[in-house]
């Protein structure tokens, strides 16, 4: 189900509904569970960040909850996937955007290709987190119950810890950019993901093709340039 299809056809004056209630809930489930796993995971990753575990109720407690909350993160991610699967497909529009990433990053709006409900960068981040979550779960299961790995297969444990760390570091890279962009680089994003609304000018500026579609000025397929 494309969530965009559920948007009201006539949004009230001045604002557009960017995220439905369900989408906002699922975003914050994944966001908060990720933050918990990030904090406790970093505590186990680096002795210099071990204090994070003390702050979150102690290290044995963190070890106990980290995998369970991680499972919550994966379930949130899968729910999100059921909502955004179609919106996140990478199309020709996104490929053009991704070819001009430099223009977007340097705030050269004139050279930045127009984007749909989500731009190419957001979609890349989405797929990074989805596959990251799956990889973290796959490796995490081995770290959760290492006592069931027989001794001759002990090397598997070492490989899985490596995989878990590499996957976590990849998602952290995406997460730093995600938080920076939503909090600092694109004002209005935090309002959008908390209240669900953006100004019409915001939609026009950042997601022109989506703006045109939901304001009824363009076909609703969302694929290509059927403006």
């Amino acid at each position: 189900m494309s969530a965009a299809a559920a948007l009201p056809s006539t949004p009230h004056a001045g604002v557009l509904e960017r995220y439905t209630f369900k989408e906002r809930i699922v975003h914050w489930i994944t966001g908060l569970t990720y933050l918990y796993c990030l904090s406790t995971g970093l505590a186990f990753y680096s002795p210099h960040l071990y204090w994070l575990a003390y702050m979150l109720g102690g290290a044995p407690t963190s070890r106990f909850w980290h995998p369970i909350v991680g499972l919550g993160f994966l379930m949130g991610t899968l729910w999100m996937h059921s909502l955004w699967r179609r919106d996140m497909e990478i199309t020709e529009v996104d490929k053009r955007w991704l070819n001009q990433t430099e223009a977007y990053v340097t705030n050269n709006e004139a050279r930045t290709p127009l984007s749909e409900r989500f731009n190419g960068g957001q979609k890349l981040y989405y797929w990074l987190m989805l596959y990251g979550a799956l990889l973290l779960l796959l490796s995490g299961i081995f770290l959760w119950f290492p006592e069931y790995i027989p001794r001759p297969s002990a090397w598997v444990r070492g490989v899985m810890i490596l995989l878990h760390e590499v996957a976590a570091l990849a998602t952290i890279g995406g997460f730093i950019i995600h938080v920076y962009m939503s909090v600092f680089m694109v004002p209005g994003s935090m309002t959008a993901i908390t209240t669900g609304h953006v100004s019409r000018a915001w939609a026009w500026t950042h997601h022109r093709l989506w703006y045109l579609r939901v304001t009824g000025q363009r076909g609703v397929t969302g694929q290509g340039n059927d403006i």
Partner: protein
Amino acid sequence: MANGPLQIKAISGHPGTVPGKNTSRDYDVCKLIDVTTCIGCKACEVACLEWNGYPFRETVFDNTYQTMPDTAWNYYNLIRFNEFTDENGNFSWLMRKDQCMHCADPGCLRACPADGAIVQYANGIVDFQQDNCIGCQYCVTGCPFNIPKFNPTTKKVYKCTLCSDRVGAGLEPACIKACPTGCLHFGTKDDMKDLAETRAAQLREHTSHKDAGVYDPAGVSGTHVIYVLHDINHPERYGGLPKDPRVPWMVRLWKGPLKWIGDFAMAAGIIGVAAHYIRFGPKEVEPEGLKPPEGSKPPETSRPESPKAGVQK
């Protein structure tokens, strides 16, 4: 030994020199296990349980003289039993007392992420502090001897302490005290190495064990538990004693270079986005319908015309 300050300096009414005066001794302790004189009586197993306060576990009979297949979280010490027939048809029983080797380069300590859960004392004893253990079992991954064992009830990991509580009080470990054949010895590392080499040389010269030698593996920078084996070239015959134990390279990778790369990447990411904000700043919202500036290169996707006013209320 650890009781250096109580070394005798002067003795009243004693003729001649004071024994041991002005000698300085190595603080490293070592347990020597001479497997050639072990009779598999398991007095050490019982002494270990008694000193550590564990009840005797159920035994598992697998048609050998071994008490159970493996050590356990509350059974630190196990005589491994193997039958061996050499190329000449000579049959022998190989008994090896298996417990923590107290490596000088402990893989468990390297792998452990919990602050203070594993300590290595100056005398070489590697000890687990269960209060600080988080139960992640990375130590199991780091150990080349498969020693740390997980207690699923308390979610803590346990292993042989080399009786650090006894040694700290100037006593020998409980297993040493119980051994009836003198196959177990305890002292400084130098003394035990010397005793072990003497015994190995004796075996080579006076018995048919021409390959007898001392097991003190260099891959983990030596151990504080050493063996005299009949055949130093085949330690794996003694219940899977590894020939060249090392801290797994995977553990060294994720505790070494990967940490540096990851720390650097995370710091670079945070500095990078901060620098981006200072250089380029936030994206300003344009008024609806603003056209791209004159003279700028048209984007690859053609930009649409302004929406007609009045389409939306």
